[in-house]
């Protein structure tokens, strides 16, 4: 309790001098100018018109000039149109990839943080290594491996299996690519969370009669929950906007993700910019739901941490 009182005083001092607001100001100002305003630009674009020559978008900055046609068109396509299957596929891909990241990433993070002993350094290095290698280089590596005359087909050919065309719209390959690409970003925060768990806490649990399994499920896992959540948010959100992984590892419409449609609308056809912007806004609204879930959890954890 005394520490709480002292905290209140400090707070009052900091508040009065505006120290904390002052420290936050540059970052917040930056985000207003270079995140919020640009975000408004997407909205203005989605609500905008087109120039008559190039069919290039002309953003409607003034809300009075807004024309929601692009939003209506895209909504129609999302629910019952050509965008519907892509949207469902994207959600499925991200869900499965996240699940695989947990199944692969948790044991890895757990082993390295608590069991690795003298191998800890090396295993950490292995986990971190892909983190420092460019994402596109890693995808390029898989394109080579999975090409018809690539190493994978040579290996399975050795066992008499006929060559498989992996890069021809294979769902498994694209999901594998997503997992491969994003899993380091999942493991690292999880590793940090697991590594931080005090051994004494676990010993205390066991002293109180918990079996090793109970200790693991009742203590270790809950204590690492924030790490899992953080890792999942870090990987799931960029995955929803990914288009280069399916492009590079498949290029087939069968593995198209919503990011491909946004990319296509914005880059491949000049006239689609408005619809691309509208689709982008819908995607933002969708991931916003996930974000709120994450925020609720984080703020709960933050409150506990402050206590």
């Amino acid at each position, binding site marked *: 309790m005394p520490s709480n009182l002292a905290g209140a005083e400090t707070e009052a001092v900091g508040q009065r001098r505006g120290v904390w607001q002052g420290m936050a100001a540059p970052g917040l100002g930056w985000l207003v100018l270079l995140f919020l305003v640009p975000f408004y630009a997407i909205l203005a674009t989605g609500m905008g018109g087109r120039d008559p020559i190039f069919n290039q978008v002309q953003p409607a900055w003034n809300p009075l000039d807004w024309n929601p046609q692009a939003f209506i068109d895209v909504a129609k396509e999302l629910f019952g149109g050509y965008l519907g299957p892509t949207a469902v596929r994207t959600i499925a891909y991200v869900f499965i990839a996240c699940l695989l990241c947990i199944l692969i990433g948790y044991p890895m993070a757990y082993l390295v943080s608590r069991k690795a002993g003298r191998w800890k350094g090396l295993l950490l290095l292995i986990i971190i290594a892909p983190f420092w290698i460019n994402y596109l280089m890693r995808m390029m590596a898989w394109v080579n491996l999975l090409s018809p005359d690539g190493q994978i087909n040579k290996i399975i050919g050795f066992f008499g299996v006929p060559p498989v065309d992996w890069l021809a719209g294979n769902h498994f390959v694209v999901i594998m690519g997503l997992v491969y690409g994003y899993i380091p970003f999942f493991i690292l925060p999880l590793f940090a969370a697991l590594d931080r768990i005090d051994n004494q806490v676990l010993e205390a649990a066991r002293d109180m009669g918990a079996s090793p399994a109970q200790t693991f499920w009742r203590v270790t896992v809950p204590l690492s929950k924030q790490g899992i959540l953080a890792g999942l948010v870090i990987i799931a959100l960029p995955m929803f906007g990914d288009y280069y992984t399916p492009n590079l590892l498949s290029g087939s419409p069968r593995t*198209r993700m919503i990011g491909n449609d946004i990319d296509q609308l914005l*880059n491949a056809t000049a006239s689609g910019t408005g619809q691309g912007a509208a689709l982008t806004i819908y995607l933002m609204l969708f991931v916003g739901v996930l974000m709120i879930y994450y925020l609720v959890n984080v703020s709960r954890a933050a409150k506990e941490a402050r206590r």
Partner: protein
Amino acid sequence: MTRREFVRSMAVAGLAFPSLSALLAACGDGSGAGGDAQVVIGTPANPATQPMVDSNPMIADGLPSEEGPLKLYNWDEYINLDMLDRAKQELGADIEVTTFYNEAQAIQKLVAGEVDFDVWFPTQQTVPKSVAGQLIRPLNHSYLPNLANVWPSFQSPFYDVGSQYTVPYVLYQTGIAWRVDQVDSADIEELENPWEVFWNTKYKGIVGLYDDITETLPFAMFRDGVTDLQDVSQAELDAGANALSELVGLMNVRYSIDGSYAGIPEGRFGLHLSWAGDMVNVKYYAPTPEDAEQVRYLWPPKAANNTQYHAMMASDTMTVLKGGKNPVLAHKFLNWLLDYDNSLENFSFVAYQPPQAALDPETLVADGWVPEWLESAIIRESDFDDPLAVLPRALAGEEELAWNDAWQRAQSGATIEPESEE
């Protein structure tokens, strides 16, 4: 970013917020896409003279070159970089090359007006709107004596009579490439409609198409028997898009840009829509000489039994951008590249044939430019007279929107309902 700049940004934003539309108005003027300008689209039957306007004058005769660096805006792998070293010396200025993935992206950047490229290599389909939107500058022919080197038909092409804004770059025909170890040549060469091979389920999984609306949508329409791109109905467009959608499930089709010149020799594809120039490039990308020997090419109008299914051929162009800082140098560079020897050196890398009158197509095999089994990839001026040859259609306005919409659906594998009319 220093604090000073940060403060400056804050100040600007403070001003910007209440006057967004005023700012936009300013931006709109700068983009050059004025509302009154007309897009003039020529067709082979009705060639068009592109309009000249006072606000976009050509440069005067006899000006000295600027200092450079000359900035080129081009497709990837579409100019010989080694050759440019010599161009730098001979033109006395540095040259920079920036690449774009496709034209929509290129136009987006150019219209936004924040780039200052000097020379651009657009397709002829893009020329009319680039003129109307004043992206490109009228050419002063006094700097371009070498234009006389190209085929006569290209000295005054239908899309730009008098070559007022463009000079030709290199030629292409859009045909079919395949590997004989994966595809039976008879399944293509002996068909009445060679395009049908892309719907032959024997070849499911090895089929590729260009990720390019101006090639792939016409391809599907040619297969359906469309004979003229200058007058395409909505029904034909929808049918073409549906035919492409069908390929997604039926053939597991993949879209790529490199699938022909690299994917075919590497074995990633067995069958691909293909520009003739991609075939000449095959030898550079084949992992082994044997792979290169597997590759064949056919431009459907040349198929023995084909009497009615059309295919496209055209030339890309070279233009001088209005937003560039080195217009004189740009003119000189265009002229330099129209020189016979220089364009041949470029051909040796780019592998797309320049329409140089002095270049005899009949000697290309003997001189080692093209392997004999890909002799079919050589383009002759007489090919333009083939009754099955189709020239591309420049797109703009509502027509472009309809094409884009069809393309978007085709790529998703979605089918357009015929009755979905508004």
